[in-house]
């Protein structure tokens, strides 16, 4: 038994009543994925994650991944058997096409599974997550022979996948990469170069690793337009599907990191390695963009997932730990959960986590609509919503992941700072999430630079109007919902004003828009979260479950009254422009009280 309690009942409630999953299950191709089946799957999956994966989290952190002198990498001892069971249980295959032995379930169901997997052990979960990214790219751009060769084993999890983008000089600026791909007479390419930060680039959990590598062919255009994507398997695959000789890829070292110690982060060296082109030359960035929305949503979900695990442990601790006597209590001392400030920390975590889970699943449901809605305009609109919400999910989810794991640690007091309790591991593990898969700064730039301008601002304006429909429903719902309606209305007004400012300013002064992009994105996160919690409270009224209705009402009200008002407070920063950010040069930033030149020293 681990201390992780899978939030299956909340997942089921959100899917059924808040984000409209039953409509997804009615889309052509998802007939087998009715809600009852999905809930049964999530229950069994949660049971598996809590019992098999969650117990590996803390030992995996202590033990860490190790590179051996021969260049192989061993993961923590508990990972390999747990991964074997994960593959046997088939949980990685759920959302992929049946054609390649997947389950053919909606992405939203896959995302719910990802939340539980990442809560159980994020370092472990990264292996299937990277595999999923590689599967996604192959599914959309691989040729049939490549799909048949690689996909069934990657979907089952027997083979894992990696994404090789970053090089020392090419981080956020992928276009600066220099790895070379030289065509050979047999149609393959010789890949040579060095890649860094390759998650699970080498490990002992599977027999084969399928690397997807971005590289440049001779005479390719400069920058992102000249990047191609290659399959470089660790072992060459024979015609009968068996594994042949070791390809020219080796792990030079693994990084010593702040967190996710169980997950090897590798420096990979490619020397004349055999690579197979995916699609055509120079399509590499387009291929990366295909999987970007889903990968970014998955990382946002990691913020939620680790926040949830940290919260559960903090909640347990707050009931056990006794300090001081609460107001009105008798006896020697009280459990710290009875002190108002501890309550505030716990409720803040619970409300934000509930908001995040709703936001992630709302986005995922629209991903499903964007691929499976029979109506073309329906698909297009869903795709716009996914485009708008993905940077918000990624940034807001991971920023809150950091803040909430910090708050969970705070509940422990001094014991949170001691590694033994496990609270600090979550704080360390989650810290990578605002950085990778496009830093949160990049996400904010994507929101204001690419997403707001869609259809000259009509896309975002329509979404704001859709959110505002909740105000009328809240007005009809009775006095209890008044404060939620008032505060949401106020914050929607401010968000609209900020959005108008962004749209107006964007073309003339892009630097001003970028300067306010991060606080502006945060306003979106706060408002969409409040909106979805309000919808939860409204939906819970209609179900014959007084306890659920009360919980959802309190969460929505607490969020609206006590967390959401921060959004308005960010308006100034979002719309201040770039003046002060650039008013001081680097020298002024380095020393604000320099000695005046030539001033006498005495």
């Amino acid at each position, binding site marked *: *038994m681990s201390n992780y309690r899978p939030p299956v009942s909340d997942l089921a409630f959100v899917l059924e009543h808040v984000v409209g999953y039953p409509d997804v299950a009615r889309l052509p191709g998802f007939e*087998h994925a009715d809600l009852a*089946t999905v809930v*049964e*799957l999530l229950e*069994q*999956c949660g*049971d*598996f994650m809590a*019992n*098999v994966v969650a117990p590996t989290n803390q030992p995996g952190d202590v033990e860490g991944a190790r590179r051996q002198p021969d260049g192989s990498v061993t993961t923590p001892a508990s990972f390999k058997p747990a991964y074997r*069971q994960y593959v*046997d*249980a*088939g*949980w990685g*295959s*759920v959302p992929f096409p049946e054609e390649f032995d997947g*389950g053919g379930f909606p992405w939203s169901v896959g995302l719910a599974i990802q939340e539980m997997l990442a809560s159980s052990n994020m370092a472990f979960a990264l292996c299937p997550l990277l595999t999923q990214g590689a599967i996604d790219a192959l599914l959309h751009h691989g040729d049939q022979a490549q799909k048949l060769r690689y996909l069934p084993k990657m979907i089952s999890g027997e083979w894992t996948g990696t994404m090789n983008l970053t090089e020392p000089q090419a981080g956020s600026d992928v276009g600066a990469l220099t790895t070379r791909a030289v065509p050979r007479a047999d149609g393959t390419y010789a890949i040579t170069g060095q890649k860094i930060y390759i998650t699970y680039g080498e490990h002992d959990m599977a027999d084969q690793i399928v690397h997807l590598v971005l590289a440049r062919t001779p005479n390719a255009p400069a920058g992102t337009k000249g990047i191609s994507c290659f399959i470089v398997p660790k072992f060459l695959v024979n015609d009968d599907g068996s594994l042949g000789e070791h390809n020219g890829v080796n792990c030079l070292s693994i990084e010593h990191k702040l967190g996710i110690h169980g997950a090897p982060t590798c420096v990979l060296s490619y020397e004349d390695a055999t690579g197979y082109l995916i699609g055509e030359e120079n399509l590499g960035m387009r291929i990366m963009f295909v999987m970007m929305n889903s990968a970014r949503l998955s990382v946002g979900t990691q913020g939620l997932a680790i926040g949830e695990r940290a919260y559960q442990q903090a909640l347990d601790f707050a009931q056990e730990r006794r300090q001081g006597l609460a107001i009105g209590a008798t006896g020697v001392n009280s459990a710290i959960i009875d002190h108002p400030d501890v309550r505030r920390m716990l409720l803040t975590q619970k409300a934000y986590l509930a908001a995040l889970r709703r936001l992630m699943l709302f986005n995922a449901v629209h991903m499903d609509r964007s691929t499976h809605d029979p109506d073309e305009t329906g698909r297009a609109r869903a795709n716009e919503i996914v485009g708008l919400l993905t940077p918000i999910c990624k940034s807001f989810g991971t920023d809150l992941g950091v803040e909430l794991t910090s708050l969970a640690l705070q509940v422990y007091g001094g014991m949170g700072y001691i590694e033994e309790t496990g609270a600090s591991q979550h704080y360390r593990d989650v810290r990578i999430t605002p950085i990778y898969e496009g830093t949160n700064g990049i996400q904010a730039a994507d929101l204001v630079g690419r997403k707001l301008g869609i259809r000259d601002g009509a896309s975002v304006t329509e979404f704001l109007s859709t959110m505002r429909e909740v105000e009328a429903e809240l007005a009809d719902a009775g006095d209890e919902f008044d404060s939620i309606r008032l505060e949401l209305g106020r914050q929607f007004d401010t968000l609209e004003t900020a959005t108008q400012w962004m749209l107006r300013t964007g073309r003339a002064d892009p630097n001003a828009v970028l300067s306010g992009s991060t606080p502006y994105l945060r306003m979106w996160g706060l408002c969409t979260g409040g909106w979805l919690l309000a919808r939860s409270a409204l939906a819970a009224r209609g179900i014959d479950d007084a306890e659920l209705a009360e919980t959802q009402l309190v969460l929505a009200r607490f969020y609206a009254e006590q967390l959401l008002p921060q959004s308005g407070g960010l308006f100034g920063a979002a719309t201040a422009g770039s003046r002060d950010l650039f008013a001081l040069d680097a020298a002024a930033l380095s020393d604000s009280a320099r000695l005046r030149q030539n001033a006498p020293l005495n």
Partner: protein
Amino acid sequence: MKIVVLVKQVPDTWGARRLNLDTGWLDRGGSEAVIDEIDERALEAALAYQDSNDAEVVALTMGPDSAKDMLRKSLAMGADSAVHILDSRLAGADLAWTARVIAAALTKLGYDLVIAGNESTDGRGGVLPALVAEHLGVPLASYLDSVAITADSIAGERSTELGTMSVRAPLPAVISVTERTAEARFPNFKGILRAKKKPVTVWSLDDLGADAAASPVRSVVLATSERPARSAGTQIVDDGTAGVELAEFLAARHLI
């Protein structure tokens, strides 16, 4: 080979377990109902054999309507079909009657091997497999820590106070397994989906014949009462005579 695994729905070991004081029966609303963990191991023993041999595995239970959820899990783990003995007349049936009914069902169903857990986590009787084997007139190998199944026999090891006993029996036979046997597998995702299409047969007492319906012996609950709250223990403070006091305390309770 046809292997029938006896499975039982029990209250979750980790939840609160209560009796209904009016009936003396288990209060099923008290905690989540799950498949007994020991029965999962019994099922695992059957499935492990089926993994590499030709065998049909049937999960058999007797219990209220809610027991069908647990049968669903047995099917998801890999059982081919399930049989549910469901009859309101069986509510509160004692061990003797339960064994009679299960034996009747096994006779109707046909079997080469019956596998049960050594004792349920709620009733803890530990005699049901023996009673069933007696009714069926087949060998019983109980409390097995390991199980080796062949086409016409079973063998296994049983721990005793003095050592380990190797037992074997020809089939057909009834065996029961302990917590030392292999841990049960988790249902596989596709197995959960396949389980929805697997057959679950429901039999009432009438389906099992007059012999099962009419139990000659029956335990009857005359009275039930709450377990008394624990009283404060005796504290002995050592003022030099603690050893003597302790010995007297134990002697007074005939413990030494």
